[in-house]
């Protein structure tokens, strides 16, 4: 599968392979700065966005996540589920090299993104993060105006165009525009938690990333805000690939196309807990007829 992707990308004549007709103008070896909005894929996606091969993550030499091999698909929502401490966040943070910021963290294996190993020697993590945005569990707006919160990213990455327009578009995409259009100059700290989280999503979208990673984005929100963010994800997945960590089974079932179930492997002893990917499949299958007994126990709430 990953090989098809790469050929399709580097060779425009092969677009026949893709029924949706979506092509990327970028060559396989450069990470494209701005992806054009693409038509929604009606059929299941056939392109991988991340091809993870044997990914291990170690903290200070201690294995935390082991041997994750999974192709994550383009323009799909992939949910990562599993018990606490199984390494969902750790794995998610590998995908945009946020783990580089943790002293002692080490990633082994390959994560192929647009034909390029994210962990290759010559890859600049700063460039990676420009293409792969992230929304965190706790809303973390900057202590600035709503406008400045959104404008920060585009300024940093040197986006051209009218900043007012960029800000307005980002807020609209995050369905926040109507809430805040009259108070763009107000400090973002004065917003509600749900609004702050949507602001963080808008902020991530403003730099026009290719992928959006979300680590339990709704865990601090009420059901109504959660609902809005879920709707939002479904709307924007036509243009973005989304990977979301969630503890909420219903949420995973509602929004995701694929689900990856991780668990804690205790076979090496209680002090050597290692997170492993158990099963990665179409969401419906994971929730109705999973292959693995552990997955079934977890999704039906019989776990532990």
């Amino acid at each position, binding site marked *: 599968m990953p090989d098809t992707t790469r050929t399709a990308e580097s060779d425009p004549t092969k677009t026949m392979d893709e029924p949706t007709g979506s092509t990327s103008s970028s060559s396989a070896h450069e990470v494209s700065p701005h992806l054009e909005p693409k038509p929604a894929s009606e059929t299941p996606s056939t392109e991988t966005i991340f091809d993870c091969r044997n990914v291990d993550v170690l903290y200070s030499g201690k294995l935390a996540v082991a041997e994750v091999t999974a192709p994550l698909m383009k323009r799909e929502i992939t949910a990562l589920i599993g018990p606490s401490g199984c390494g969902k966040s750790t794995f998610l943070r590998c995908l*945009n090299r*946020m783990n580089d*910021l943790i*002293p002692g963290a080490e990633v082994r294996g390959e994560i192929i993104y647009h034909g390029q190993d994210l962990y290759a020697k010559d890859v600049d993590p*700063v*460039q990676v*993060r*420009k*293409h792969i*945005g*992230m929304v*965190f569990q*706790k809303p*973390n*707006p*900057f*202590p*600035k105006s709503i406008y400045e919160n959104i404008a*920060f*990213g585009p300024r*940093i*990455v040197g986006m051209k165009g009218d900043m007012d327009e960029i800000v307005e578009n980002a807020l609209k995409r995050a369905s926040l525009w109507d809430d805040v259009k009259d108070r763009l100059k107000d400090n973002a*700290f004065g917003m509600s938690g749900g609004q702050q989280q949507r602001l*963080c999503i808008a*902020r*991530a979208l403003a*730099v026009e990333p290719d992928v959006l990673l979300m680590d339990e984005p709704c865990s601090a929100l009420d059901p109504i805000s959660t609902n809005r963010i879920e709707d939002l994800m479904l709307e924007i997945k036509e243009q973005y690939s989304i990977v979301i960590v969630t503890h909420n089974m219903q949420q995973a079932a509602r929004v995701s196309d694929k689900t990856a179930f991780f668990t804690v492997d205790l076979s090496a002893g209680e002090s050597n807990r290692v997170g492993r990917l158990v099963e990665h499949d179409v969401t419906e299958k994971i929730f109705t007829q999973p292959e693995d007994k552990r997955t079934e126990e977890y999704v039906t709430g019989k776990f532990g």
Partner: protein
Amino acid sequence: MTGAQIAAKAATQTTVISRRSKKDSRRETGFALIMWGALAFICLAIAVLLLTIVIDGLPRFSMDLFTNQPSKVNPETSGIQSAILGTLYLMVLTAAFVIPIGIATAIYLEEYADSTKWFNRFIELNIQNLASVPSVVYGLLGLAFIVRGPLSLGPTLLAGGITLTLLVLPVVIIVGREAIRAVPPSISEGALALGATKWQTIWRQVLPGSIAGIATGIILALSRAIGETAPLIVIGAAVSPRFNPDGLGSAFTAMPVQIFAYSKDADPQFLELASATILVLMGLLLLMNSIAIYLRNRFEQKW
């Protein structure tokens, strides 16, 4: 249960929350009294001090004080113009050195230094220690290395500025680090996740988020610097110069030095001059501290 028993139970239940005992309340008033006493003592001491200074100094607090130059012989026509200017120049000079060096060091130690490395820990420990070294020691350092020795600047304004910089630098670094540390890591993470470089993150998020704390620290450090007497005397500040400092290489005096010089004189008129100078210096310090408090209340980021 008989009716009597129920009644008895109800009676005991009304006093489930026992009333405050006499002993407790007496103890509380006792503590309150001790605290009020301590406060009153401090206020009284300050009031007496201020009052004597004001009574002594007020008659001499006139325009002449600001326009005339100091004198060792004529107390009637003496002023402190060169001392006021000396203090202001020293302050500007110290600020010019301490702001960039202090902030840069604080950023390095908080954001770049790997605190598991021995030399970084060594630097940290030394900065902590330097902050508590008596100021006269900095004077000796200035004398040996700046006025004489390697730099050989002589007892000049520049030498005074560098000495005071060394004196307050540790405090500025420590306060700066605290302000930087107060910015939650989630803010940096948010910026980095958008593709900001480390420097962009520091410059555009971490520093703006901590600048109020840093600025407050710098102003308080500067107000300490201009109140210092010992190091300036040790490095050889001029006594009662009748000229204003006119450059970095100029001899200088400062208000604390002048206060010291005047108060040593047997002539009580000089003592009045010393009190008047204290009033000026205290006014300046009060102003600076008010600015620091204002900055903190107005701009400090609540996370």
